[in-house]
């Protein structure tokens, strides 16, 4: 094998794939049949972390970065002067298997530039997945990108081999997409999304009736949107995400803070900072929607169209809804306890379980792992003292901010280099 050439291609094609932030390998349970290779256990494993702190779970590469499209935000766009390369089917299969056998990865995340038409590109991706599943008897994780405009037949076959499929929505609104990706029409993105959502739901139903029914993308579909490249508010973004969750049953929406790598008058200047903090707050809000039972319009709305940068969205919501507090930890339902700032899902579950044995006090709550410094403004427990009059939202906010010295401040606002 020409190792040097393979390495060069790997460098080019992982460089080109890295802006797709998803690296999840969870949500699929594939057992290792008849001494094949690999399994997926449902939880997902991060085998390493990049120096920017992101999980490395999958071999995330493009099949090729040759592309006929000219999307302004994309490094692989036609008009960009970058080194181009393409893997053969064999090379991708060999890399995946050999990395997997050494326990480097959970599987493969394969995307591609659109090197001719959508179907030709999609067919090549599907062929690799088929080879892995059939010839190599590989049961590890496979995430395939569904190429916008690909035919339903190919999407159908992709779903039979892949654990997850994703079509990137790219930008939070159709107007922005038209502006920055003139070759992509919004319909070519939502059509495959809608097809996949139907096929995934149908396969789930069939599975429920018979475990012999074929699985179809058991880890569901996800998408990504770039934030900070276009003028949408957090409200626009989260409403869009909310509608994708409810409308297409997406597993995850990823938010990718725009990294200004390209010069284009339609985009932020190359000197612009990556919006780390905004991205972080959007992910927090996303968790609230997916796991904590919040609706998008509780987190952001016309009165509060942007997330508060200084405090997390749950605290922000609680401060806007002080009339719901304080809640009594020893009697309130789980759904309300989990909404208290400073109490996470695990702690809320423990509280509901432990209080059956007696009324809980501050000391026990602290040991269970809640953040008393934040939660104390919102809860009552066994040894709560009567409160000295109601605190105002502004006062609570100030107190929490001053004592917490927001741990995110250092993490997300870097000093500009001097040169």
């Amino acid at each position, binding site marked *: 094998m020409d190792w040097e050439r393979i390495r060069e291609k790997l460098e080019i094609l992982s460089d080109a794939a890295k802006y797709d932030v998803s690296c999840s390998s969870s949500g699929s349970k594939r057992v290792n049949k008849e*001494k094949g290779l690999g399994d997926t256990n449902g939880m997902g494993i991060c085998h390493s972390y990049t120096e920017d702190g992101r999980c490395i779970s999958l071999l995330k590469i493009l099949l090729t970065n040759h592309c006929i499209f000219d999307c302004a935000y994309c490094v692989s766009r036609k008009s960009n002067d970058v080194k181009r390369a393409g893997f053969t089917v064999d090379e991708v299969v060999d890399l995946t298997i050999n990395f997997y056998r*050494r326990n480097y990865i959970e599987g493969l995340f394969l995307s591609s530039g659109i090197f001719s038409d959508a179907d030709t590109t999609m067919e090549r991706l599907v062929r690799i997945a088929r080879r892995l599943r059939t010839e190599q008897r590989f049961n590890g994780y496979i995430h395939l990108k569904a190429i916008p405009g690909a035919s339903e037949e190919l999407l159908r076959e992709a779903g039979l081999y892949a654990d997850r499929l994703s079509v990137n929505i790219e930008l939070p609104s159709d107007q922005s997409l038209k502006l920055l990706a003139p070759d992509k029409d919004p319909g070519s993105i939502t059509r495959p999304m809608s097809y996949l959502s139907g096929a995934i739901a149908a396969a789930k139903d069939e599975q429920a009736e018979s475990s012999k029914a074929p699985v179809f993308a058991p880890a569901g579909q996800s998408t990504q949107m770039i934030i900070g490249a276009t003028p949408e508010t957090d409200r626009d973004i989260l409403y869009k995400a909310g509608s994708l969750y409810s409308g297409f049953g997406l597993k995850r929406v990823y938010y990718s*803070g725009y990294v200004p790598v390209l010069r284009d008058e339609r985009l932020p200047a190359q000197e612009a900072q990556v919006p780390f903090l905004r991205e972080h707050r959007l992910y927090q809000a996303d968790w609230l929607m997916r796991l904590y039972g919040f609706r998008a319009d509780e987190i952001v709305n016309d009165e509060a169209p942007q997330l508060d940068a200084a405090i997390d969205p749950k605290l922000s919501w609680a401060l806007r809804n002080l009339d719901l507090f304080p809640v009594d930890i020893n009697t309130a339902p789980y759904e309300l306890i989990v909404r208290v700032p400073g109490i996470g899902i695990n702690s809320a579950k423990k509280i509901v379980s432990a209080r059956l044995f007696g009324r809980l006090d501050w000391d026990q709550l602290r040991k269970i792992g809640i953040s008393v410094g934040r939660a104390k403004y919102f809860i009552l427990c066994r040894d709560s003292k009567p409160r000295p009059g109601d605190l105002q939202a502004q006062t609570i906010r100030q107190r929490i901010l001053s004592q917490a010295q927001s741990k995110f401040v250092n993490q997300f606002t870097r000093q500009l280099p001097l040169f």
Partner: protein
Amino acid sequence: MTMLIYDGSFAGWLTTVFEVYERKLPTVHIMAADRETPDAFAARMQVITDEAKAARVWNGILRHSSPDTGEMIWRAFLSELAGVEDTLLVMVRYLFSGIADAGKNYGHPAVLETTQTARKVWREKHRMEAFVRFRRLGDGLFYAGVEPDHNVLPLIAPHFKGRYADQQWLIYDLKRKYGIYHDHATGEVREVNIDTGEGQRSNDETLLDPSEPAYQELWKAYFRHTAIPERKNLKLHLRHVPRRYWKYLVEKR
């Protein structure tokens, strides 16, 4: 105060619990033989591991709690943290006190500590499943040496067995001097105990499969290029990949 010395095995600890009840010992301090710190003022008693006594205690635990609580006690035991045997004894006494669902009372100090210790061990189990890096040796064996803080090989064995069913592999605990070996012909995982420099096997370049260095180089190249320099955040990186694990990781050496 009685010091109870056992052989360090889980069955040994269960036997010790049996003796505590059998002899109605009020205050005890349980220690594994190889971690014993002498105490001149305490009575010392050697416990001989007895499978039958161990089974009686184990079944008692399951009867008074649930399989989940039993599993949690085992995991906490594998932590090998100083004093964990005593905490688990308090836990067992509380379970045996007859309070329904006692194992779920996280307000009780022993229950909470057991849960938290078990979680610590589980976290390391998960990390080992992530950070084990096999090297392919010339004879086809995939080898990995590890030095986990807790005794997690028994916990990770099922994962690797299920995943690499068609592969011959060995994960060796260099600290505790034993390994788990999967023979793909029989499909069995068994404990192996080779004192003679088993840990050095993979470091000997001549033993590696000829393609091994090339795949390691490819993996390193991938690791470098999948990072986004504009987002560099070493603090976050270090939180996820603590330095003490770097020695296993091809990409961090």
